[in-house]
């Protein structure tokens, strides 16, 4: 480590994510586990945690939620982004028929898991939930990776009209032997109960307001755990 905490990469390409935001594809790679996160800094604006959507090239999917993410969404090819990490404990690969359940921008937290599972011969199914069709993120990426993708939207504008969990219940195909989920906490709680009721192993990626990202400040605590250092990936039993 040097006295410069961040490394710098440039935006190589952009993929629009409908009304939700943008995926930034950077000009470098990062060695990391699926489910780990990085801290992204725009000098003079903010520094926040982001899921690693892809490791090579390093890619981040940004949902438009406030001034900082708005600034990130305005980045153009050639613009620079400052990064530190990866941090936290990610997902380990289990089973042969994983079901990935993502809500909204949580889709960015599971793509790397799908990328690592596919070469093992795993049949990866993905359920993407969003409020409306134009807020769906990263469907293209899961399809590119050869996953079976099911969609649920609150208003029925794409896929099943209902929740991500409704879409899980409607899935055909192989019996899933492990669940992974990333998204809003009410959805994660529902997934945790779904897994418990079916006696399936399940891991979830939690989100909290995070400042340091390195297990010092304590701002991301969830009970006695720190999301940044103990997680962000936890066995779903922590939500029961």
């Amino acid at each position, binding site marked *: 480590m040097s006295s410069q905490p961040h490394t710098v990469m440039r935006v190589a390409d952009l993929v629009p994510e409908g009304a939700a935001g943008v995926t930034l594809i950077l000009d470098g790679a990062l060695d990391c586990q699926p489910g780990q996160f990085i801290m992204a800094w725009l*000098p003079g604006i903010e*520094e926040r945690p982001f899921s690693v959507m892809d490791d090579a090239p390093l890619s981040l999917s940004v949902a438009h939620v406030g001034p900082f993410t708005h600034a990130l969404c305005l980045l153009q090819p050639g613009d*620079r982004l400052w990064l530190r990490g990866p941090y936290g404990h990610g997902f380990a690969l289990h089973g042969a028929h994983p079901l990935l359940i993502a809500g909204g921008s949580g889709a960015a937290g599971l793509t790397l898991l799908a990328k690592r599972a596919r070469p093992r011969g795993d049949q990866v199914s993905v359920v993407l939930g969003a409020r409306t069709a134009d807020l769906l993120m990263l469907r293209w990426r899961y399809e590119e990776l050869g996953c079976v993708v099911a969609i649920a939207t609150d208003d029925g504008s794409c896929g099943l009209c209902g929740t991500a969990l409704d879409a899980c219940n409607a899935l055909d195909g192989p019996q899933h032997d492990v669940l992974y989920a990333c998204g809003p906490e009410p959805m994660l709680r529902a997934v945790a109960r779904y897994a418990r009721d079916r006696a399936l192993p399940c891991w979830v990626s939690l989100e909290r307001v995070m400042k340091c990202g390195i297990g*010092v*400040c304590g701002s991301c*605590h969830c009970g*006695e755990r720190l999301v940044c250092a103990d997680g962000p990936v936890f066995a779903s039993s922590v939500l029961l």
Partner: protein
Amino acid sequence: MTDLCVELCGVKLPTPLVLASGIWGCCAETLVRAAREGAGAVTAKSCSLEPRVGHPNPTVLPWSGGLINAVGLSNPGAPAERDVLRTARGELAQLGVPLIASVYGHSVEGFWEAVRLIAQAEPDFIELNISCPNVESEFGKPFALDPDAAGRVTAAARAVYAGKLLVKLSPNAPEIVAVARAVAAAGADGLTAVNTLGPGMLIDVRARRPVLANRVGGISGPALHPVAVRCVYELAGALDLPIIGTGGVRSGEDALRMVMAGATAVGVGSALCGEGIGVFRRILNELEGLMTEEGIDHLADVRGCAHV
């Protein structure tokens, strides 16, 4: 047979390691977990009378010398913190691990009012944080740089709090011993030495600006350690007050060094970065091993022995 228990101001600590303020201790659950993982006392995050949001991010950064931080004393305010401390205290008491509350104020009155409220939670100690270097732009120089100001704050707290009172000193004081004498005269029962060094600054050359949103921040970790050891050594040589030696301790050897400089207990903070809460158990194992190797039964036997 090595015995890791120590006594700080007459209060028994099951291990000599103290969770330093500002690390982890923002809620009852994390304080209790630190105690279960080997901390012999736990210090809550500093609280002020009114809630504070703190500085925008980046607030804490790792660098080659340790950490630099300008969290900016974010806290829920003394009334809310009092409830957190009450919850923590009940659970910590069952573990036999004392609770140290930490209080910050930007005026003597602010300290006084916050101490009065926090005292209602009946912590085992109250630590006065008069030495945070990260809020100078708002409140001016820390009280810990000036013996008179430090003495005034301590006396005000002493007037409303009959329990064990610690004062956290700054390594930036031109004469730390003079500050310590002033707080001792004003009624402090013990010292925590030291808070972060600086403030310092990191500049990102590609961004062409300071990295911390607050521009400057306190230095902790390995870069602070030798400064902290020297401060503890000077204080222990000049005064007869128990000291929690804090600053860059990340091994059993660092902890024993603090004790040999004159510390009664040893603070651990930045070492949690990267390694996590398991750091307490590792340091304790290393310390026990080193004590066995060196034929030390009790830390009290070697406290201050480096004063040659």
